[in-house]
């Protein structure tokens, strides 16, 4: 009998310790996540769900979203699963509805799999805006899209061409052979090179750096060795471009080989200022989240309904207009040069 009592007691102690530990451990995490905005009198509550949390791209979206929320007087919450899984995004959508949020801004892992949950939200009066990766069309009001493939691919060619006088051998340093966005950009680059303006540029080789610093650096070195007359390199990857810049700097070839591509200004600042990669681009992930939240606010105000031609003034980004398929493009990518790079910090 004594044993029985002891066992029950032990079970209870275990539960108590557990619950105590959990609430103590989580309490702190919670307070710094929900403080701030909740204290203010907010007009709307907006829930921003990235594909998954934990990587800088989405963290920056969240930062921009919160910045917009502050401007507009809205409460913006940034949260999501730790894996790129639609099934794990749905519980966040459902609880946002029950918590009384007014709008959901989402980058969908699977456009269809999040659609039923988003429609449930719409049925309860919430507004839905998708950004980055679209959700099914009937499950959102507006889609805020990243800069389109065409303008990026054409931009890359122009950036390198303008540096070399539209003449000479160029190469591409890509990520992996199977990356869909890379291959789409490369296709546009090839098409653009056929235009009369770029007739003088000859694509010598496409190298693959596997989105890995070491490999990208090695591939750049191999390009320098194999093509001594190389005039320019296009590296549309945020890993490959800084790696190529480092190699060019080490080889003292910044003056003779023009470098361009897509990367964050922080990762290129040191090189660009010394003349390695004098012109490159990227869209601003902070602005991306900022714009998406502005759009959500306008949809809640009833100022945007998703019709082509509707527009809004999105704070510091200026006026933006909705195009086909209720899609509002982010606009062309930002172009960084040694002169303007210190204005950007991301």
């Amino acid at each position, binding site marked *: 009998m004594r044993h029985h009592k002891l066992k029950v007691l032990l079970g209870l102690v275990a539960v108590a310790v557990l619950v105590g530990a959990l609430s103590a451990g989580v309490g702190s*995490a919670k307070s710094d996540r929900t403080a701030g905005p909740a204290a203010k009198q907010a007009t709307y509550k907006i829930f921003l769900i990235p594909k998954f*949390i*934990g*990587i*800088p791209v*989405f*963290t920056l979206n*969240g930062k921009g979203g919160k910045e917009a929320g502050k401007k507009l007087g809205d409460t913006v919450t940034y949260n999501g699963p*730790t894996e790129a899984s639609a099934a794990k995004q749905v519980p966040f959508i459902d609880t946002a509805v029950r918590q009384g949020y007014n709008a959901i801004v989402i980058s969908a892992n699977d456009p269809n799999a999040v659609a039923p949950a988003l429609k449930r939200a719409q049925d309860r009066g919430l507004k839905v805006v998708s950004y980055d990766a679209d959700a099914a069309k009937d499950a959102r009001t507006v889609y805020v899209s990243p800069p389109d493939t065409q303008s990026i691919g054409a931009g890359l060619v122009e950036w390198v061409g303008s540096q070399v006088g539209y003449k000479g051998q160029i190469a591409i340093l890509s990520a992996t*052979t*199977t990356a869909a966005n890379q291959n789409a950009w490369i296709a546009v680059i090839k098409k653009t090179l056929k235009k009369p303006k770029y007739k003088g540029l000859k694509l010598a080789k496409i190298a693959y750096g596997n989105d*890995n*610093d*070491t*490999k990208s*650096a*090695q591939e750049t070195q*191999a390009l320098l060795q194999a093509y001594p007359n190389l005039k320019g390199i296009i590296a549309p990857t945020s*890993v490959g471009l*800084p*790696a190529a810049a*480092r190699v060019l700097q080490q080889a003292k070839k910044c003056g003779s080989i023009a470098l361009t591509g897509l990367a*964050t200004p*922080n*990762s*290129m*600042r*040191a*090189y660009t200022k010394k003349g390695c990669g004098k012109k490159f681009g990227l869209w601003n992930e902070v602005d991306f989240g900022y714009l998406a939240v502005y759009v959500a606010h306008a949809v809640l105000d009833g100022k945007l309904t998703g019709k082509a031609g509707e527009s809004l003034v999105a704070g510091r980004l200026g006026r933006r207009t909705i195009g086909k398929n209720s899609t509002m493009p982010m606009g062309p990518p930002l172009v960084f040069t040694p002169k303007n790079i210190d204005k950007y910090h991301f």
Partner: protein
Amino acid sequence: MKLSPQTLAQAAFRLREAGIFIALTVAVLLFWARANNFMTIANWQDIATDVAIVAVLAVGQTMVVLTRNIDLSVGSIVGLTAYISSDTLAHHHGLPLGVVVLLAVTIGIGLGLVNGLLVTVGRIPAIIATIGTLAIFRGLLFEITNGQNVLAFQLPERFLNLAARKPVGLPFLAWIAIAIAIAGAAVLRWAPWGRDFYAVGSNPDAARYAGIPVGRRVLTAFVLSGALAGLGGFMFAARFASVDAVAGTNLEFDAVTAVVIGGVNVFGGSGTVLGAALGAVLVATIQDGFTLLKLSEFWKMFFNGTAIVVAVTIDALVTQRLQEALRRRRRAEMVAAREQGAAT
């Protein structure tokens, strides 16, 4: 000449390693014939770099699996130590790399100790304990990174050049992997406590009766696996230079796959480091060949899975043959003994 069961078992292992070697040769010949650029020095250097981290993890995993356990948390340990070592270097450019390696390995040892204690003292089955710590360690990494990452430009150049160095034509990381594999093989062959791993795995109760401190050996195996995962984290940071919260995700699957294809028995007690390392090389070679042939990721996945099943099927068949051979030999010996007895 008399063959003891031990020598027969060893012969079988040699057979097993020979088997992987043959598979490797066949794969190499096929890819050589079909894929351009496969048989080039640069490509083999790529494969060697690819395989290095998985091979180091596979050595640690071999130790753990030999003791009839499993360590599924290594991917999370790699992520944690990769981030901590690169973040430390980003803030202290002058720090000797040896110190950073030491830091990563020490953290790995600490995390391995947690796993080992949960399994030995806490008596939680390894598969569950390490599924739990897989989630916990990864969660901690998310908390530490707070959604940020370390990028190549923040790191000192000597660190960035580390992975690109190729002493005697072989990438530096591959040399580390080779050194670790040799050390691991030596431990399992000559260190008394290393040999104990086999005894613990083939029959824990018998090992206990034989006076082997089973708990301490299992703990050692987990600590070693943690330490090697820590080293793997450093290698990961050196290789990729940019590290974020999802670094090293799913590496535990690669390590276990290498171990299983390499002929280490998942029920413990048999297998070699050489086999596991060859398993890792085989998987990496096939992956590389598939990439060069421009086959989709999906075929790779399908093929990888099938390869595991085929490898364990061959294992099972070899074991069956071996047991039959042993039984026949014993019967022959008994018959001989009886005849001798009848003769006298």
